[in-house]
């Protein structure tokens, strides 16, 4: 593999292989930002990977009161899944269990699309006959009486079939501390990209996986080629100076959002340099035959 060196950081001439997903976006509002964030954090908990969570979800960005439909502080949340059915199920379950329950909350659709997913249209049944439908021109809302007043929920939100999941960066450094520095710098920069989320804890995953396992029925297992403790005893791709690897996985509502997140992440890692940050950056793929979206690192360099 040919290497490119930028500010002392080795960039693999490889690509991240990503897959088409179904995605949606909503705005959660509350009387203050603390409770809007709380509802969003609860809703996007246990949503790191479709393998075990059904959906990959995260907070896209905060929304200032003047830009929310009800004039209260809000948070934009993205949810992505492999099928429309699963996304629909997860959206309603999570909105129902995590946002409807959260004090003072309200939910609004935030994706323009002719394809729709139900939110309020499903949650309204919680109203037990006391729910109130409100329409204004083409907007439709449900008001559900709850113990602190009313839960307001837009009837539907948009669905995109052009979402992209699985953009990634593999960050390799001397030690855990320096690798984490680079990963955190990348995440910080990526948070500024609209319509992209990093669904793993704090945006960072330490247990990258490969497809399959020696055990029957296990769909994914540890990516031993990137485990520093196995260097030499397995078919490792790590250099002698690499002591830790962290990965950032990116999902976006569009291909360009994923590319942009990878671009700003790479730029932040390169800017930090190898001494306190990453020695090398790679990306995960399956040989290019499984996913239609290929994000080549060399095309995303600053």
């Amino acid at each position: 593999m040919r290497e490119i060196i930028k500010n002392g950081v080795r960039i693999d001439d490889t690509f991240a292989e990503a897959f088409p997903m179904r995605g949606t976006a909503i705005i959660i509002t509350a009387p203050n930002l603390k409770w809007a964030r709380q509802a969003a954090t609860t809703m996007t908990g246990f949503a790191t990977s479709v393998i075990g969570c059904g959906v990959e979800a995260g907070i896209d960005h905060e929304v200032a009161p003047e830009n929310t439909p009800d004039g209260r502080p809000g948070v934009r949340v993205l949810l992505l899944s492999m099928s429309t059915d699963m996304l629909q199920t997860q959206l309603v379950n999570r909105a129902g269990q995590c946002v409807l329950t959260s004090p003072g909350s309200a939910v609004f659709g935030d994706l323009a699309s002719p394809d729709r997913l139900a939110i309020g249209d499903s949650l309204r049944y919680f109203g037990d006959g006391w729910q109130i439908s409100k329409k204004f021109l083409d907007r439709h809302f449900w008001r559900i009486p709850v113990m602190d007043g009313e839960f307001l929920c837009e009837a539907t939100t948009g669905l995109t079939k052009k979402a992209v999941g699985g953009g990634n960066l593999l960050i390799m450094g001397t030690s855990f501390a320096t690798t984490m520095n680079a990963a955190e710098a990348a995440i910080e920069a990526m948070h500024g990209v609209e319509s992209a989320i990093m669904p793993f804890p704090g945006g960072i995953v330490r247990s990258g996986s490969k497809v399959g396992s020696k055990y029957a029925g296990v769909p994914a297992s540890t990516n031993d080629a990137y485990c520093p403790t196995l260097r030499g005893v397995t078919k490792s791709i790590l250099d002698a100076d690499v002591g830790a690897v962290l990965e950032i996985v990116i999902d976006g509502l569009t291909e360009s959002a994923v590319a942009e997140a990878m671009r700003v992440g790479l730029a932040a890692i390169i800017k930090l340099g190898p001494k306190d940050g990453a020695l090398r950056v790679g990306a995960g793929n399956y040989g290019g035959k499984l996913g239609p979206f290929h994000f080549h690192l060399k095309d995303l360099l600053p």
Partner: protein
Amino acid sequence: MTLVLTLKQEPDQRLDLSPLAPHLVEGKSAAELAAIELQTTRETRTVGDVFNVKTGEAGSIRFEGGSSRFDNLGAGLKSGEIIVEGAVGHAAGHDMSGGRLTIHGDAGPFAGTGLSGGRLEIKGSAGDFLGAPLDGEMEGVTGGLIIVRGSAGNRTGDRLRRGTIVVEGAVGDYAGSRIIAGTLIVLGSAGRLPGYLMRRGTIVLGSAATLSPTFIDCGAHNLVFAGVFARLLRADSKGAAELLDKTLRRFGGDTAVLGKGELFYPA
């Protein structure tokens, strides 16, 4: 270019202007336009008799001069725009489903009856039965938006089913009578028994009113939906937006019937 119809003189009989919707006159020549019959008696009155016609694209029609004898103006409007620089008669915007109808003068009774979409704005005042169903019909407005800058008469919004009606002035007696659902906002005062026999739906009044004893006080609230509607309405009616942003006292009713409706006024 707009199709302009300039009134020659006050018509000598009531006229039915429903043939002058954009989708009905599209592609017609000046001669064909002038030959359209508008009379409601045995004496024929054509467009050419009543108006000076300046042809243009029918997507936009402007009436220069109006009359309280102009009935059914903008009836069946689906898209495009009609502007009336003057008054209109009975049932303006009857069964409108889209587009914009703007009346700079006053409107007669039953303006906006059967409205299911689009935007009807009356810059003057509206008569009785604004948006109410005509004889034999089951429901009034079923969608869209009606804005009256002046006042409106009795039974405003009768049998409202869906959509939004805003009256910036006062309304007469029994505003929002028998409403099925939808939203009626009145910035001025209301006459006797607003919300009389309403089943569901929302009525917001700009000031306290004497309600039927079958309305029950549910307390003062700042509800999120009111804030959302305030923002959605701000461009069309600043006054309505300001009213909705206030703390509002909610009355549930009319419990003489289903009782799932609500009437608000500032707490």
